[in-house]
């Protein structure tokens, strides 16, 4: 049964109009000072300004670029180590038994709690942030690769073995393709967590990047700068998710078409 509500889009438009309308109205009416809450138009204006005038040393897109490169570093590292580890844990019972207790312990430590060690070990330039992203993104890579590998039909593995395939070929040609949808889903979760961990690291110790823009905006009491950075962070996160969603859809289509 579908209750007939009529067209739904007017509700959506109403929601958005109300949201921005109330926000703008509250500021315009002077109910809150713009040192507390800037209007949507001010945030837009600030965004355009920051693209053309350096803030905290760099232009807005340069900050975003340096954050994004760090993200790519930490995320790739997590994927390159985490996915094979997860696959192997799914394949070899002994490895699973060895890694599981350590992994369970690690999982309960909030990624941001690694910031002090990351900074002491690898500095606050590139190494430290990459380690924080890594700790944030690692767990879903491992878990999903493991689950994916467990779902692979053991008959397929045995068939490959009887045809003389070595462990490497089994991993590459049986486990990896079989687990791929699960792996890609894990990578999407990882990317989100990694991106958010990076922002945290930049808030706490790092002195460049989009997170640092927020810290500077906060200490300059410029909420419009802070909100510009929030907006940009959301946008980049959305972009990353969009790309991975696309990859996921492609993988799924190919996998199910087989």
């Amino acid at each position, binding site marked *: 049964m579908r*209750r007939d509500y009529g067209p739904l889009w007017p509700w959506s438009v109403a929601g958005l109009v109300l949201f921005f309308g109330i926000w703008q109205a509250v500021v315009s009416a002077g109910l809150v000072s713009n040192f507390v809450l800037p209007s949507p138009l001010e945030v837009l204006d600030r965004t355009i300004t920051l693209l053309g005038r350096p803030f905290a040393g760099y232009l807005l897109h340069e900050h975003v670029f340096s954050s994004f490169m760090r993200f790519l570093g930490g995320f790739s590292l997590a994927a390159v180590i985490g996915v094979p580890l997860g696959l192997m844990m799914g394949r070899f019972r002994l490895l699973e038994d060895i890694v599981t207790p350590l992994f369970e312990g690690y999982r309960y430590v*909030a990624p941001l709690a690694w910031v002090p060690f990351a900074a002491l*070990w690898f500095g606050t330039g590139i190494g430290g942030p990459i380690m924080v992203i890594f700790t944030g993104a690692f767990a879903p890579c491992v878990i999903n690769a493991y689950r994916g590998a467990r779902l692979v039909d053991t008959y397929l593995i045995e068939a490959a073995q009887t045809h003389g395939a070595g462990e490497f070929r089994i991993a590459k040609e049986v486990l990896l393709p079989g687990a791929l949808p699960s792996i890609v889903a894990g990578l999407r979760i990882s990317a989100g967590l990694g991106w958010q961990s990076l922002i945290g690291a930049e808030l706490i110790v790092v002195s460049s990047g989009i997170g640092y823009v927020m*810290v500077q905006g906060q200490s300059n009491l410029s909420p419009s700068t802070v909100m510009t950075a929030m907006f940009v962070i*959301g946008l980049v996160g959305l972009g990353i998710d969009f790309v991975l969603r696309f990859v996921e859809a492609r993988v799924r289509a190919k996998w199910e078409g087989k």
Partner: protein
Amino acid sequence: MDKRTPWGRVVTRSSITGVITVAVVIALWFFLTSVTGIVGQYRFPSPQDFLASFVRLATEGYAGGTLIEQTLQSLWLVACGFFTAIVIGVPLGFAMGYDRRIEAFLNPVFLLLRPIPPLAWIPLAIVWLGLSDGSKILVIFVAAFVPSVINTFTGVRNVDRTLVEAAKVHGAGTSRLISEVYLPDAAPMIFTGLRLSLQASWTTLVAAELVGAFLGLGRVLSTAYRDINTAMILVAMVVIAIAGAFTTILLAQVEKRVIKWRTT
């Protein structure tokens, strides 16, 4: 593996390997730090330093409070943020799943705010509320809110239509429909959301306290970092992990009770 003795389930090959692994790791830790000193104390603490720091935090305190005070402060903030978030988030998600008009009304705004990671709210919260407890509760609220709304929404939206129809045919009104069909059917999904919310709450709390706090486990962590006291850093990390695990297990117990009660 499944012997009928009471120990049959505890002493399995997995658990033996697990115990050996942990023992080896601890031995290796001891060897690298205390025995040979390959890893210096400014990189990673030795087991003795770790224990000494733990005792110090528990008895005389560190960074403005003892272990109990710091832990209770953090637990209190997580509890405030988490409960506010689920008290608002679950009914909201429920309403969005129940009525498509409400979904259409709220979803665009939600989609707009959702991509912003909770941690990115910290500076704004500080501009608004300073380094007070309030700013941390606000950030935890934001972090815990999103998963509780999304999962409740998904759970309610995926309730078996046949069940709803059957209940209606037998004359169930809206309130009975909600309490006896929608809620029980959506409960597992709602609890998944709560678990994710709880996790997000801890992550965010740690970040917020690292950015600036007067008390709390994150404050212990950041003070230890400034003092380059690696032993205390490790103590803080372990206590945070245990506190997080404790609340997660508590929630799992609640889930077990609630779902059992619902299905019988």
